[in-house]
């Protein structure tokens, strides 16, 4: 139970961080660079999972993705994919915020210089903006990873608590504590704490240096 929960957690956190970074970077760039009607509303909506109780987010996801939901055909609930979806949604706002700030902090003259040297928007993004924003993006990714690793409420709602399939570390900890397996609960907590410390160290290291 311990190794499988740890593996599931690491797999889920890695996949969901990848998804959150991909979509979150794009969303963060749009929010930073494009002034469109309702920009701040979109930002607020994307940030909702940060402030809503995770069980509320999980419930929305279950209603949306459940068999009778709008996207019921995807058959996501109670699978590993459900863990990934829940963790991605929870990690997403952290990544978007970090990305938006990172892109906004880039001196506009550097983009102008790139354009004047003949680079288009795409080339400027890949060769100028992304490298300049990389520390902020990496810090966002690390925070997103930590959030995904610790995800509990939404995962419990959407993915259930199936040992060996959807039981992540936090769910295994909950179950061990509820069944009086205190030594198992403690061991799992130590494992989760250790991983979290490593993530925080990485964040600290990224935050200190200059881009």
């Amino acid at each position, binding site marked *: 139970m311990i190794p499988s929960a740890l593996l599931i957690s690491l797999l889920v956190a890695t996949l969901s961080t990848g998804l959150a970074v991909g979509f979150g970077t794009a969303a963060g760039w749009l929010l930073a660079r494009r002034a469109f009607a309702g920009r701040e509303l979109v930002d607020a909506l994307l940030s909702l999972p940060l402030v809503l109780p995770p069980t509320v987010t999980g419930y929305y996801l*279950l209603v949306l993705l*459940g*068999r*009778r939901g709008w996207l019921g055909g995807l058959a996501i*609930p*109670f699978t590993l994919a459900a863990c990934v979806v829940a963790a991605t949604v929870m990690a997403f706002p952290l990544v978007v915020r970090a990305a938006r700030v990172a892109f906004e902090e880039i001196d506009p003259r550097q983009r102008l210089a790139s354009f004047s040297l003949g680079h288009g928007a795409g080339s400027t993004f890949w060769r100028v903006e992304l490298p300049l924003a990389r520390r902020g993006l990496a810090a966002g990714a690390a925070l997103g990873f930590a959030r995904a690793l610790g995800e509990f409420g939404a995962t*419990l709602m959407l993915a*259930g*608590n*199936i040992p060996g399939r959807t039981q992540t570390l936090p769910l295994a900890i909950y*179950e061990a*504590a*509820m*069944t*009086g397996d205190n030594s198992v609960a403690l061991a799992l907590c130590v494992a989760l704490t250790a991983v979290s410390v490593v993530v925080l160290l990485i964040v600290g290291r990224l935050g200190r240096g200059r881009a």
Partner: protein
Amino acid sequence: MNAAFIVVLVSAAISLKAPLTEAARQFDASSPGEPVTFTFGSSGELAAQIEQGAPVDVFLSASPVDMERVAAAGRIDLATRVAIAGNRLVVIVPRGTAPPSELTGLLDPRFRRIAIGNVKTVPAGRHAKEALVASDVLERVEKRFVYGENVRQVVDLVARAEADAGFVYATDLPLGGDHIDLAFEIPESLHKPIVYEGAVVAGAKAASRARAFLKFLTSAPAQEILAQRGFLPPGTTAPK
């Protein structure tokens, strides 16, 4: 502390929610004293909280197993331990699903997901597992299990058609409204008897009121409320 803030806090198996709420209303109306309030959950979850020192006055468990666990931890007043009700285990399906008529019927591949209470903390899940073992089908259906953290969640999973069948108590049927159908009752011979037990928790702040409430639950008026909701009197489920 101001006496007005003292309540009798009862940790109760969530399947007892409806009759207990009604019984407490009657108890509070008929005898003056600290009001009875509840915290509901799976018996295993509540037992763990009490073991860890949760400041509750009464534990009402859906199973002797979880009561035994807190007793072994020295957390209940053993003299107060009493059986208060019995129940039956049933299989439910979402309305519109052709129901199976016995446990082996669940082997049919159309029952892709079967909801069951977490066997570690939910007594109804434990009894369901016992019955599946006794019928020799557990290994073939176990891979299709999705777990509920309490028996109400199992009802909900079936009512939403997230699961194609589920194991709940006969008394949970009204919770599903018109979204679920009863498939069949599981023969009692297939699992350990379902016995709800109560006890006053050691060191209860409102101990005398807690004892009075527990006594009330075994009295005729409270047993009538339980019977109306489909619970069986204690002791009718013969030990195996």
